[in-house]
């Protein structure tokens, strides 16, 4: 599968990037794509999922790299690689759940290239979508690309491609905010508001905008937390289900707790009721079971990946329960 021709834009500053992006954004499959690590984009371009006229390479933009501690918390540049996050002593100390999630992404070689911004912007995935042009033609295409029906939900007009990034689940638990830069300046929004819940138009990012920074608030520093990932192989695989949990405990009681899921819905999602249920309680088997059930109810996996949806939902329940009990000890 060849990589089609495209024009490569290589800005050195953020302003230059925005000025290049805005007038040449394009639309649809031809829309300008931003490349950082390229681990998601390049295979998709070979499969003709994207056929951009322009590719904007942001790797030269120094201001998008690195981890900084500020008054409000910790800022991570969108270009920071996952292996850099894995090794960061600041993050290890204050936001261990993010480090744990980053460590599970793909394989060490991929993590050396892949960025946190890329993991947040990761395209949603589906067995009926992440295939070559020839393959997709043989099933009449799907609603996410070139077709008008979904193969995984009967009579579906909604796209159910699953969001398959690992780190966003951890970031949701950390109440992370993201900064987007566009021609009108920058805007900040909670990561939770970035995702739409639709499999096709899965994120709220204008074609002329760039994700620049991830901000981890002080308030969620030093929470205990963990990330559990369902995969068939211990390396390489995307998550088939993922659960991130952060807890703040005081005298054996939970002061606050957050649970987020990934790879089982078109967006990474917080298990909303879980926080209410956990608050003020002492963590025991029964509570863990109850919250596990809540998480499983939030998960809506379909046949977008390997393993059956029923099994993946069940694993959300098991992983949630296990992770909670592990944190309790």
């Amino acid at each position, binding site marked *: 599968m060849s990589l089609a021709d495209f024009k490569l834009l290589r800005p050195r500053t953020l302003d230059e990037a925005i000025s290049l992006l805005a007038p040449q954004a394009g639309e649809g499959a031809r829309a300008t794509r931003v490349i950082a690590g390229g681990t998601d984009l390049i295979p998709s371009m070979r499969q003709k999922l994207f056929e951009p006229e322009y590719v904007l390479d942001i790797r030269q933009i120094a201001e998008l790299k690195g981890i900084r501690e500020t008054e409000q918390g910790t800022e991570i540049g969108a270009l920071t690689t996952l292996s850099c996050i894995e090794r960061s002593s600041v993050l290890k100390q204050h936001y261990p759940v993010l480090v744990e999630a980053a460590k599970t992404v793909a394989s060490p070689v991929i993590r050396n290239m892949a960025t946190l911004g890329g993991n947040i912007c990761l395209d949603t995935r589906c067995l009926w979508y992440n295939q070559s042009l020839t393959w997709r033609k043989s099933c*009449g295409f799907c609603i996410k690309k070139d077709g008008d029906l979904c193969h995984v939900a009967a*009579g579906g007009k909604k796209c159910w491609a699953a969001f398959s990034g690992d780190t966003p689940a951890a970031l949701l638990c950390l109440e992370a905010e993201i900064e987007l830069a566009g021609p009108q300046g920058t805007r900040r929004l909670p990561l939770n508001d970035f995702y739409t819940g639709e499999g096709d138009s899965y994120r709220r990012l204008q074609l002329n905008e760039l994700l620049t920074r991830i901000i981890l608030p002080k308030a969620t520093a030093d929470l205990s937390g963990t990330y559990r990932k369902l995969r068939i192989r211990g390396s390489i695989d995307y998550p088939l289900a993922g659960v991130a949990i952060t807890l703040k405990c005081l005298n054996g009681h939970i002061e606050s707790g957050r649970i987020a899921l990934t790879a089982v819905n078109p967006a990474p999602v917080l298990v909303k009721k879980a926080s209410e249920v956990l608050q003020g309680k002492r963590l025991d088997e029964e509570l863990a079971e109850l919250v596990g059930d809540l998480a499983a109810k939030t998960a809506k996996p379909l046949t977008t990946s390997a393993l059956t949806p029923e099994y993946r939902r069940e694993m959300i329940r098991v992983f949630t329960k296990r992770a909670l009990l592990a944190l309790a000890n």
Partner: protein
Amino acid sequence: MVELRSTGKPRAAVRTWTSFMTDFSIIGKPIAMVDAAEKTTGAGKYTDDLSLPGMLIGKILHSPHPHARIKRIDTSRAQKLNDVIAVVVGADAPNPYGILPVGHDEHALAIDKVRYIGDNLACVVAVSEATAEAALELVEVEYEILPAYFDPEESMKAESNLIHDNKPHNLEKDYHHTFGDPDKGFAQSDYVTESRYLANEVTHAAMEPHSTLASFDIDSQTGQAGRLTVWSSTQVPYYLQHKLSLVLDMPMSQIRVIKPLVGGGFGGKSEVIPLEIIAAVAARKAKAPVKITYTREEVFWAHRGRPRTIIDLKTGVKNDGRITAVKARVVQDGGAYCSYGVVTILYSGALLGALYDIPNIHYDGYRVLTNKPACGAMRGHGTVNVRFAFESQLDEIAGRLQIDPAEIRRRNLLKPPCITVNGLRVQSYGLPECIDKIVERSGWKSRKGKMPKSRGLGIACSHYVSGAANSIIRSDMPHSTVNIKIDRDGGVVVYTGASEIGQGSDTMTAQVAAETLGCALSRIKIVAADTDLTPIDIGSYSSRVTFMAGNATMRAAQEVKKQIASAAAKKMNCAPEDLVFRDDSVFKQSTDHVGAGLRPAQEEQNSASVSGRVEGQILRGSLQQKRKDEGPKDSMSFEEAVVATIDFHGALTGTGSYAPPLEARGGKHKGGGVGPSPAYSYSAQVAEVSVDEDTGEVTVHKVWAAHDCGRALNPVSVEGQIIGSVWMGMGQALTEEMVWKDGLLMNPGLLEYRSPSSVESPEIEPIIVESIDPEGPFGAKECSEGSLAATIPAIANAIYDAVGIRLRESPFTPERVLAALRAKKNAKTLDMTEGVDPTAPVRLREHGGALWFKGKGPERHELDPARRTEGG
């Protein structure tokens, strides 16, 4: 089982890694593969690394429909695209071919019908890959969609719309064999059990995707296309030469096939793959060299892997565990073409024998056509899935009769030398030692039954042929021939048709030649797998190379050695029989050969002794003269002996061939030609696993794998093959599965087709057992395939030992394991396996998915010609 004369029965000896001190100087030593450096440094050239001046790139158009008649194919728009040189279609090469003489059902490109999603329709030849791909979108094909068959048992009921018109009920071939008296055997048994087993489809996933470069010379006399040279990633260059000659209507003498480095075969390159023919047809039409390299997706469509198999198995035993009868019904979902299918279905039945002593066997085998990519040969060809069923059932029987699972296997051993009830001759038989070794090393007796919760041990055995005793193309031709040439430079050039595919063929050849000639390994140069240069060898498949090409190499070397001995004997004033060839020297047997025998092994292998002070070739004559003047002596260097021989005989060449002996060629029944082998390898394994009872995840902690390879010519290489087999078997047992939805492969890539990564690789303890086969070269037999089949049932049996569930459908993915665990506990039932109970499977399942257009869906891609027409 007919016991043969039992005198001279070879006794098996067990050796550990460090005890390979034999009387040999090169055989039995752990030496590096002769091609290791070029492979590890990246300097080695695989087919896709090759390029010729003016070379073009070919891209193949594949069918989007599982079964359709081609009403019209129009390539004119594609042809008009800039930089497109030629477009080839079925009509350009209409002769049918197939690897088996009974299965010539394939065409280079489809003529009238496409039979699976991915079938080959047309090939565009262009100056670049991107141009060729763009042109593929411009080829217009009009189809008449036909009903398609995906489930083999459904396919067998077909009355109309057959996949091949000459195959009623879509049945490629069925065999019904009865050996002994199975009815009587079951009647005599104390306990009978019967179950259905399903093994899902797996593929080779070799690291190197298939690649072929084809180029025609211009004939100097006529100015027309003359001889064809093909470089291809193949295990069988001579079969490729033969099939090219059939399809292209060219004499074989006008076709040269060269096999560059091959990045793994595992059976996936053991037959002629469509691109190999297409590249040649395209090169002829384009009048330029054409290279085609498959994408990974195309590798999955070319496939030829292990078919989905349904095994209905019934075993009868006496109370003491002795097997009285076995009945097996095997249905293989073979895909759309014959490929090796007839051989696969025969192996599945034939290799029920030759492992244990089974007095009565009934076998019904059905090879069924379906609208999916063709299945073919894959490591452990035909035996693996049936072995999974058999060894699982034997474990179950042992449990029922309260016999130790290792012991029940010991009670059913053959008594070699013998001929089994289905006509297989067994001579060397290291299985008892294999079982002893793994029982000892794994601590079986003290640990089995006393493992911690959710942790278990399982045992299983397997075996495999050391090459088929009968070639697939019936003839009396030797299966392997090897030529050796030694010239005045003292270099030994071995010309062998055997194909190095990473398994160590070239290294084995070099070792056998060097040991036989007593010369340094560094003298040996291997010229291999080039049909112009090397004598015919039928290829690297069915683990035949060490046994057959090894024997041929030994014979060729012996012939040369005889000539050298006769010349050297004259020099030394002794009889040729009194000479010993060793450590790069020739000396009288009586001589106390100080030095040579004591030289460290490393030096022996790597350095050829240089003849005295003489270095240049011109000087060699005078050296010879000087030696002559010196009178008789007690020893000569190998090089001196060679020079002396050339002086007496002129050119020094030898040839050796191997054909399996008549006694090893099997019974006379229909299909009796498949299964017989001159020797069988044996394997026994213990797997230790744990099961997570909440998630169904299985972790393999350790596998003890004993393998009887006759003699380990290169122990480090044997260990590598055992470890690789176990690892590949573990992939089939736990994670690998081609997932189908109505003929569409859902996971045509290495991301979604999950071969284990290094993270899942358990500790594997390879144990070499040497039974010294009477006919193998230095006693060697196969070591690359036999171990695979034991791994799957060993893991299945260990899972049973750990958590008490008997899984009868592979792979044992977490959802299947959990479903079985839940069912056993009567816990909240979740339908995690789409209605299929993995402990009692009934049907092969299709991947879920709510909608399917059967090819009639909206064709909306902007490049889609249909859409363009609609839009005006």
